[in-house]
């Protein structure tokens, strides 16, 4: 991984997370000369510390076509990347506890079905039989067989190696201090020397707006500081299916090694200036209580670690995919609210926009132009 910086490249990708590396994978696969530059070890921020949930049922209906394709993209990615990414597609439940939640669950399940998802309705004894580990307060659930998860721990190394096998380079511990336009593209001044390139893709997650200022543009991301917790390894009890909640702020799964990962996006504290992330203890307690109310068996496990990750999201919550207006050959690939699920599709769509000069239909409504109107 200790690759030195080359003097030039066709495409430089700033950020070695899920969006940057999947873009690099596609571009290197198309024979383009790609260099991914990360200011530290790649895959260390949101991509490496998220919960690994790959579901559609907990995603915004307004972006449903994007997410449907995202889950297909993940499956494809897990096949293309030969090394283990900890990908498992055993389906997932979306649960409801109160009558209002049940009504909302039913309504949204119908809408998701209309949009092309295969959603199964479960309640009563059928639900108990299918998921006896759900607590008695859960009165109904929907099940989607395409819901999946991947291991954020394993996926990073697997992707980096896949990029490198295709001829892409990943340069670590290198910071860009200054970017200037040249007649043929950009010259980036970095702590590892200068590099000339034709195109630049900004894929720096929550730091994308900081990186964008190097190019004189302002994209304005708000920060999600998502807390996560992991338990010790316990006997397998939920068949490696994921659980989300119609009320939001809930994701749960048990990895094959036995540890359960409890997420949902309860907010901690932190900022991108120092990169510090801290827990909000009150919020964490609410988070953990919520989890144990939905899946009481968790109370038999020990909490090993809680932490937080930074996610940068545009005001409208949607991903940013494509070229920046009035900045030739400058692209954004920011998953935003698309998160880890949307990451690989963001990477592929930005790569295809760059390769063809035209955004694919799914990327059109997600183009950065909307921020600059």
């Amino acid at each position, binding site marked *: 991984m200790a690759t030195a910086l080359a003097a030039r490249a066709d495409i430089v990708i700033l950020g070695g997370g899920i969006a940057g590396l999947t873009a690099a994978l596609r571009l290197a696969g198309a024979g383009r000369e790609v260099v991914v530059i990360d200011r530290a070890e790649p895959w260390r921020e949101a991509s490496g510390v998220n919960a690994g949930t790959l579901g559609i049922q907990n995603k915004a209906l307004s972006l449903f076509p994007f997410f449907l394709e995202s889950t297909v993209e993940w499956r494809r990615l897990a096949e293309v990347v030969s090394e283990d990414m900890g990908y498992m597609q055993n389906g997932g439940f979306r649960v409801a506890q109160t009558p209002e939640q049940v009504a909302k669950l039913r309504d949204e399940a119908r809408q998701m079905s209309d949009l092309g998802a295969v959603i199964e309705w479960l309640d009563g004894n059928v639900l108990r039989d299918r998921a*006896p*580990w759900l*607590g008695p307060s859960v009165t109904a659930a929907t099940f989607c067989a395409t819901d999946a998860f991947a291991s954020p721990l394993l996926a990073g190394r697997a992707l980096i190696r896949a990029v490198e096998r295709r001829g892409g380079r990943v340069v670590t511990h290198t910071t860009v201090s200054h970017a200037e336009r040249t007649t043929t593209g950009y010259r980036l001044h970095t702590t590892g020397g200068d590099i000339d390139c034709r195109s630049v893709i900004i894929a720096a997650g929550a730091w994308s707006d900081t990186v964008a200022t190097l190019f004189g543009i302002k994209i304005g991301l708000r920060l999600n500081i998502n807390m996560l917790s992991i338990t*010790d*390894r*316990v*006997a*397998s*009890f939920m068949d490696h299916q994921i659980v989300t909640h119609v009320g939001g702020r809930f994701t749960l799964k048990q990895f094959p090694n*036995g540890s359960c990962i409890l997420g949902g996006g309860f907010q901690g504290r932190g900022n991108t200036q120092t990169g510090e992330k801290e827990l909000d203890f009150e919020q964490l307690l609410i988070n953990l209580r919520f989890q144990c109310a939905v899946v*009481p*068996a*968790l*109370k*038999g*496990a*020990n909490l090993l670690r809680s932490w937080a990750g930074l996610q940068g999201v545009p005001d409208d919550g949607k991903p940013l995919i494509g070229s920046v207006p009035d900045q030739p050959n400058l692209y954004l690939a920011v998953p935003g609210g698309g998160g880890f699920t949307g990451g690989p599709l963001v990477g592929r769509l930005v790569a295809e926009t760059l390769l063809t000069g035209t955004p694919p239909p799914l990327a059109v409504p997600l183009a950065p132009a909307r921020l600059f109107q």
Partner: protein
Amino acid sequence: MSNSSLRLDGDRGRRVDITVDGMPCSAFEGETIAGALFAAGRAHSRHTPIRDAVRGYYCGMGVCWECALVVDGRPNVRACMTLVQTGMRIETQAGFGPPMAP
């Protein structure tokens, strides 16, 4: 120290009857599970989930979790941090131990 036991000689107070893997075993008030097991000449607590290797009491201060075993059906109880109680059922933990009660 008497020859038959690793317990030091002396009046140990109230006797506490427990079972270890189904066999009756005597312990004394104030003893930890680890103390009672060692006194009975038994050093192991569990078999590991991945390699099925045998492990037991190692750090003695609650840090290493090597002495985790099944107590009254509950997995991952540290022998070194848990006092014996009358009627306690202690079992060697296999892998992750029994599934958690819902």
